């Protein structure tokens, strides 16, 4: 097995422009399969942009990215589109579709993942049980609390059975009790589903007790170093 085969994420020399005066990188990032890493840094340093780059939602100017041994982008060239990267993404604001109820959210993703309609009910029930949203099938995003909305976003991210889960400030709007509950859920899911998780936050204390490693990002968009926990 090569190094790349043991890596969930391998990014080298990553660099991109984020605006008129902000840059990301250059930076190298390695994440082993099954690892849960926390990425912390001040607001606006490019943490969320890094997640988007890994997911293929933002282009890079230079650098290579491999996911689970497969090269997905080289320089500014995209080799594998976002939908084929096997990534689950929990967006900061939830990014839930306001016109769809909980069941429709999951059905949409299951259809996109080419899962046979006969299996949808069972898979949907399994996902809702995993995130603790049983009985919420008919509810629309506007009627969900902050924690419930994040759980729906998580169920949607998990629906196509990703190997890598990217969490963009997932605990931002929640109170302390719900934060702890959601963190425990992430950790349980990681163990049960054999997931690799990269978790972005601006609060270093947020999840450090449950992650394997904490990566620090500087205000200039480069990585400063790391702590093992």
């Amino acid at each position, binding site marked *: 097995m090569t190094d790349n085969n043991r890596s969930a994420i391998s990014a080298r020399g990553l660099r991109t422009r984020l605006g008129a005066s902000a840059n990301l990188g250059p930076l190298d990032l390695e994440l082993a399969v099954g690892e849960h890493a926390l990425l912390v840094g001040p607001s606006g340093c490019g943490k969320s942009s890094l997640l988007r780059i890994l997911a293929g*939602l933002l282009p890079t100017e230079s650098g290579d990215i491999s996911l689970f041994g497969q090269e997905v982008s080289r320089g500014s060239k995209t080799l594998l589109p976002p*939908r084929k990267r096997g990534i689950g993404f929990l*967006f900061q*604001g939830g990014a839930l*579709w306001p016109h769809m109820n909980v069941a429709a959210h999951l059905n*949409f993703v299951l259809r996109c993942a080419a899962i046979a309609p006969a299996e949808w009910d069972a898979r949907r029930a399994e996902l809702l049980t995993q995130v603790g949203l049983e009985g919420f099938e008919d509810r629309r995003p506007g009627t969900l609390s902050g924690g419930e909305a994040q759980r729906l976003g998580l169920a949607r*991210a998990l629906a*196509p059975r990703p190997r890598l889960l990217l969490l963009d400030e997932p605990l931002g709007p929640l109170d302390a009790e719900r934060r702890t509950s959601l963190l425990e859920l992430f950790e349980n899911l990681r163990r049960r589903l054999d997931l690799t998780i990269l978790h972005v936050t601006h609060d270093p204390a947020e999840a450090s007790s449950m992650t394997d490693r904490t990566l620090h990002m500087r205000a200039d968009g480069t990585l400063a170093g790391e702590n093992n926990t």
Partner: protein
Amino acid sequence: MSRTLLTLSLAVLAVAGLAPVAVMILRVVQDPAALQGLLDERTLSLLGRTLLLGGGAAGLALLVGAPFGYLTARTDLPGATWLRSLGLVPLIMPPLLLAVSWTVLVPQLRGAPMTILLMGLSTFPIVALFTAKAARRVDGRREEAALLSGGLSGVLRMEFGLLLPAALSGTCFAFLFAASDFAVPDFVSSVGRKFNVYADEVFATWQVNGSDSRAVATALPLVVLILAALLPALALRRRGTLATLDSDFVAPRTLSLGSWRWPLGLAAWGLITLGALIPVGRMLFEAGGGPSGWSVYKFQAAFGKAIDLCRDNLLASLGYSILAATLALPVALVLGHAIARWRHGWFLEMLCVLPLAAPAILFGIGNIAVWNGTYTYAFYTSGGMVVVLYIGRFLAFPTLISASAVASMDRELEQAAELAGASPMRRMARIVAPALLPSLMGGWILMFVLAMRELDTAILVPAANDTVMFRMFNAVHFGRDDFVAALALLILFVTIVPGVLWRLFSGKELEVLP
């Protein structure tokens, strides 16, 4: 973005909207002699009158439209809900009908003052809509901070700078409608002192000389004028009404006007009386016999006659308008999405609004030049020609509405679907379109209304001579007053039906802003 969808949409834009403009430009390039006399005294005089009409009407629209839009959207004005709906009537009503009503009521007022007044009344709802939209986007917390420090006047001072770009953008669109209108100056000038403007001149030049290149050359200063209004309109639109709402946006609360509530309410109702109630009331009066004695019998007879004689025209207009709006909608969604999401979307936006920069009369001549050929003659004389004409002329409006809606939509909604594996086409159909339904319906209804009330291009293109507005144009000049009034009311009724149905059954506000 799906390349197939975008290519198809660009093809529709190119064929229906850009080809007539391009052919017209080509005619002038091939015949430079047509440009002689472009800046002679007569042309400059026309330019001055058109500027006076466009500027006067737009100024009037700003003066009354901006306060009307703000007051009805944000304050406890008496009957604000009704005023918001009735405020759309002058925009929905073909300007010619407004002209027919007011020239009878105030026959001594003709020429420039009447034309400016009519076009100002017809276009003030555009400024009101832009202002209202921007006013609803002010964050409630920001407004409360201003309210605490300076009361209502503090709120108005704080919001003035936020609302001004939107109001000015609406004013530029009002200028565009007023400066390129042909039917109202033509009708108002049919009796008494003449007030010829560019649109008249372009039509006359084309009719008398039969020369496309001369007509285009005559129109060039008007095109420059309209472009000069469109460019700031688009730039201001981005600053004014397009600002994306923050995810923690707090809707502003209704403001109390205090002792100003009733005086301002009376002023707003006065404006609606002038722009909607009096013209409609006058038509109801004329349809029932007018000065010779109003009766229900005469009223029914006038409507019976209007329906008997114009049923086919009404059905033809309905068919063309519904088809044009329906076919334009998916194209507008795709183009609007590209405008909002592409880094160089502004270029596509400019291409989309180019057909609007050409006066309607010139756009009609362009269509004749493109389609009146040996191989396309069968299409040129068919109803399909009218549908293509309307799509080409008005596609910019639903496109800009879509662009505005996409720009306000959280990009992550699409990215979430993309990561889930949804193809570009599925993302467009299942995520973008449903999330923007009020805007898409607004685009459909605006396109339908504009197509139903379109007259300038219909006068030129023979296939559009069976539309109800063309019939109306002839009736205004040669028909009986009761018949004209009944037909006008029928057109107005049919035109407002889709908007009323949406309001009744959806319970949602329409987004009808470009």
